[in-house]
């Protein structure tokens, strides 16, 4: 066991940041960076796609619906390959692994987020939108002030689920040689040779920690909402 502690002692920095500062950023830091960038960019795109999905205009609705169906019907690995091999030949721009992976993640997650957001919006009673419009609000203002604040409250648990998936999905960067934490770990394992179980256990625990933290957060949000509703129901009984 002391041998494995030595491995940790030697490689912990490599595990955390890759070759940085002597080379490109990698390891856990890159995983976190990739996941956060993907979330930050996928969310607004997801909202846009959701609006397009419920748009009254077919020209807008159809292409986005097709995109959503295609993305939902293909594994992320395929999307990554497309972004890696197909995109450069179309655009003529050779993107590095980070951007390739980011593009794939953003498209993939935006399609899923769009479905969550669409369901959240359409799950509200129609009267909310009608009433806001009757007061004189335009469509987008009614969305922003009346519909979305309510819809997002209902969507939160599903959104957090999707965020958790995104963290795990970054590990597929391995396949195109992106030096995120899974890739770095496999390199460490190749060099050390004798502790594969322990090394991958550490990797697993790292993902678990990240995702568990987020899922506890989602659980807490759900509980808080449940409690609030229970309190409201109790108050209503009292009246």
């Amino acid at each position, binding site marked *: 066991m002391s041998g494995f502690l030595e491995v940790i002692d030697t490689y912990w920095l490599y595990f955390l940041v890759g070759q940085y500062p002597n080379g490109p950023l990698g390891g856990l830091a890159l995983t976190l960076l990739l996941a956060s960038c993907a979330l930050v960019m996928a969310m607004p795109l997801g909202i846009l796609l959701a609006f397009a999905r419920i748009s009254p205009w077919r020209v807008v609705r159809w292409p986005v619906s097709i995109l959503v169906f295609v993305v939902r019907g293909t594994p992320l690995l395929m999307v990554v390959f497309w972004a890696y091999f197909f995109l450069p030949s179309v655009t003529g721009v050779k993107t590095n692994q980070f951007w390739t992976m980011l593009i794939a993640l953003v498209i993939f997650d935006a399609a899923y987020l769009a479905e969550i957001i669409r369901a959240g919006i359409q799950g509200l009673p129609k009267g909310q939108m009608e009433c806001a419009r009757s007061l*004189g*609000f335009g469509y987008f203002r009614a969305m922003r*002030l009346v519909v979305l604040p309510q819809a997002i*409250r209902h969507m939160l648990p599903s959104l957090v689920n999707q965020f958790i998936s995104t963290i795990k999905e970054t590990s597929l960067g391995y396949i195109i040689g992106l030096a995120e934490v899974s890739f770095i770990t496999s390199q460490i394992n190749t060099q050390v040779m004798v502790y594969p179980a322990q090394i991958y256990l550490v990797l697993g625990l790292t993902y678990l920690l990240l995702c568990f933290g987020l899922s506890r957060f989602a659980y807490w949000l759900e509980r808080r909402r449940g409690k609030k509703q229970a309190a*409201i129901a109790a108050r209503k009984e009292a009246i």
Partner: protein
Amino acid sequence: MIEFESVNKWYDKYHALVDVTETVARGEVVVVCGPSGSGKSTLIRTINRLEPIQTGHIRVNGQDIHDKSIDLNAFRSGIGFVFQQFNLFPHLSALENCTLAPLHLRGLSARAAREKALSLLDRVGLAHKADAMPEALSGGQQQRVAIARALAMEPPLMLFDEPTSSLDPEMVGEVLLVMRDLAKDGMTMVCVTHEMGFAREVADRILFMDAGKVLERATPDDFFNRPQHPRAAQFLADIRTPFARAV
């Protein structure tokens, strides 16, 4: 104030409004009644363009509401609409429900909007519930807040679409009282309602509808005591003695 001119509306093949020609004068209180599915709600919802029509014209204050040049949002903000399901915004308090539109659409300062909302909540007897969330209010209270919210835009015209139909019987009165006071203050009102007591006491005129047509237009006295159309007479007989036909 409102003119319908040969208005027709279809839901697919279903003819929901049949050649409706009608006027509502300023300051008038018109009650629309009739059996379920007769087109009452459809009619009232066409007035602020919640429902499109296929043929005919609707004019409000002389302006054709389907005119391309009309600013739909500005037009709608001048008409108060009260829904059967209240439709309070559940994420906002009673007060915030009443200040939302004046703040964003009239450009009122936060303080002015608040003061106005409080005075309106006071008018519907709910000043003490200003900070309550809608879920914590009873149905009758929610509907009264909804009326205050509509009034906050100072509309010269109020539309009520079955405002008491989803209320427990004991709460109907409090909402009708608020509506009666509004009528007394000279508000122009169109009310779709099954509350015949309200119609009798408050309405200037009653429109009776069936199968998308306005079959009878009369003063409450004439309508209740001397209905002209046989369908109206039948309707009145049915609501007076609900079991007569079943037995």
